[in-house]
């Protein structure tokens, strides 16, 4: 009996699946962007002994890493709460995640300040050091988008959209935010290895 036309519920499920897949594809695109920067960094840094990071990365990066890992955990708990229909808990944890995201942003900007105090400027004849700003800056741009996505999930749950939609929004936000978390860890490790 497999060959029957699709009904409405199936079509909604199919569309949701496709939208989530879109997100994964977008993540591949973003990954390629940072992969290109990484390969650019490697090629550039290999072009001379005077190239390379040649500085100690600021402590602030450790704090921001802890912040974003923590935010991933809170978001995951918020998502679980949403799935169980525990709306109050979901709201609270989601709000905490947004705050942690903003803290991450502030700490990263703080790290730039530390870097300039160490004499590592963006405008630099050793572009390996400029790359630190490009990596972190582009990641921060993604974080801004990530915070917007979180806020959209938050307004959704505050307005009381249907449970199905709520869980779906949370699902997308969680995948994206975890990706941003992992992306930051990748960037940090990549920079540490080239320190």
């Amino acid at each position, binding site marked *: *009996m*497999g*060959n*029957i*036309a*699709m*009904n*409405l519920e199936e*079509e909604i499920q*199919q*569309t949701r*699946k*496709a*939208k989530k*897949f*879109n997100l994964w*594809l*977008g993540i*591949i*695109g*973003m990954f*390629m*962007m*940072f*992969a*290109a*920067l990484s390969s*650019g960094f490697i*090629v*550039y840094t290999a*072009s*001379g002994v*005077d*190239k390379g990071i040649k500085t100690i990365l600021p402590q602030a990066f450790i704090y921001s890493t802890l912040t974003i890992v923590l935010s991933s955990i809170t978001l995951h708990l918020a998502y679980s709460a949403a799935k169980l229909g525990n709306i109050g808990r979901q709201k609270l944890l989601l709000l905490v995640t947004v705050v942690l995201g903003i803290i991450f942003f502030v700490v990263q900007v703080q790290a730039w300040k530390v870097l300039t105090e160490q004499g590592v400027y*963006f*405008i*630099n*004849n*050793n*572009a390996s050091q*400029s790359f630190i700003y*490009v990596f972190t800056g*582009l990641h921060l741009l993604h974080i801004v988008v990530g915070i917007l996505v979180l806020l959209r999930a938050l307004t959704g749950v505050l307005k009381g959209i249907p449970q199905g939609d709520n869980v779906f929004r949370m699902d997308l936000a969680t995948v994206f935010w975890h990706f941003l978390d992992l992306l930051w860890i990748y960037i940090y490790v990549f920079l540490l290895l080239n320190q």
Partner: protein
Amino acid sequence: MSSTVISHDAGHHDAHGHHHETFLTKYIFSQDHKMIAKQFLITGIIMAVFAMLLSLLFRIQLAWPDKDFPILEVFLGKWAEGGRIKPEFFLSLVTIHGTMMVFFVLTAGLSGTFSNLLIPYQLGARDMASPFMNMLSYWFFFVACVIMIGSFFVESGPASAGWTIYPPLSALPTSIAGSGLGMSLWLASMVLFIASQVMGGVNYISTVLNMRTKGMDLWRMPLTIWSFFLTAIVGLLSFPVLVSAVVLLIFDRSAGTSFYLSDLVVGGQILPNEGGSPILFQHLFWFLGHPEVYIVVMPALGLTSEVISTNSRKPIFGYHAMVYSLVGITVLSFIVWGHHMFVTGMNPFLGGVFMITTLIIAVPSAVKAFNYMATLWRGNIRFTPAMMFAIGMVSFFISGGLTGIFLGNATLDINLHDTYFVVAHFHLVMGSASIFGMLCGVYHWYPKMFGRMMNEKLGYFHFWLTFIGAYLVFFPMHFMGIDGVPRRYYAFTEFPFMEKWVSVNVLVTWAAIIAGLGQLAFLINFFGSIWNGKKATQNPWNSNTLEWTTPVEHIHGNWPGEIPTVYRWPYDYSKPGHDEDFIPQNVPFSQTMSSNMMHDFEGDDEAVRIQEQWNKENNRVVEG
């Protein structure tokens, strides 16, 4: 019981999509894939006409470098003072011609139009995975076009560093006139364009993988869908790399970083930038740039596969080989970018590696060319205008592809690099072939897009003028290239060894002008037929794919009732034993007992048994 069908009519579908359709939501900010396809197509056509006019301008300069054309000054003002195009403007013309043709016409205009139109239609989906993103994709593209055209209205002129925008010309705003605001606008436009392509591409991939109707497994997809799908994958993996390259370039231009810049003196002044490498940009650029040429040509290959099979009334020859060759091209396209950089001082060993990977691409390409010819062989060919363009596409793909084998050789490339030989090669294999693929698609799917037919006579007229014109324009360039004439040179009269080629340039320019005028036939046909064309029937070409099962009138959700189920591959043309020479994909095998073959059942024993019993009862003898 699972077979309960919840009726799903178009009105119902509207209930969760569009509540009220106004002019604005229907024609402007439409989220319907059919409307977005038309938006992409018409914008693409406008950009193509614009870019073609640019090429005619620089062709005039090349043919008559010492003559004044006062009329040019009327239109171009200070860019053609005294009726002669200025050298700086000449460079802008070639740059913007290339940019618009490659990105706006042959990427967005081709992929954007036909992926949007055909992916939901041929797969049996009501729309794209994310219609909203799809709409954004178009509007980002539109704004990118506006900005690019807008760069003609700034005082220092449009970008002029070539479509490949190599630094330092593109990275130093003070280096030439076009490196100023024009270049900034180029970059802004391109960032928007990339955003558009990534959003579009993500949608195409996701739709193909998630939104197929029942029975439409991957090996029943038409080759059009395979090519759009693989094109979108190539785009998704390569465009973000260009973003990175462009971001670094913008920092070099505007912030003073030194990613690409080193040891430069401009106007007697030593620049502070040190340590950068322009080669780094070339690597990043060509990592997109080479896959980009396959982004341009693969959709054309898909469209022509479908049109050639339909109009030969024969199954496409080697369906699986066609798919695997597309996959092969997709994979190989990422590991050949170095062949654009043989003369940058690349390590000869690395050059050798890139040479081998490049030449391997000839294999899948040749598979496709031979399969086209084998499909045509002894077919019951209908020479519709679409079919003419499809055959023309194959012709250009072969004649342009052959010179790729010359250019892919690292040693030969030392001589041929940056000469007219390269110009001839890519204009045939990528430019003309893709444009012909696109036009073939327009002629073939016009009834699906506008519900009316195009005029055939004007179509043939358009074909022959364009076909002969394109060969007359690009073929002589091979000989100029072998003689060492470099591309992008402003006046052939300045160099004694090039002077003898001016007479050839006159021929080329006249051919270009006449072929250009020939496009009027297309424009009249295209825009005129929207209102005055003969009304189309539901399936005017007797084609098998699902888009022809939808009503002629466009409705939101494509099918008024249930989405059809697919039972067979799309190429059952002229199947022996069937009373018609086509069997649409949604016709079950139970209705075509007289033409079923045992391999149609893919090992389904029950079906084979029923068929054998039927054969016995009806005295049908199956060969083989």
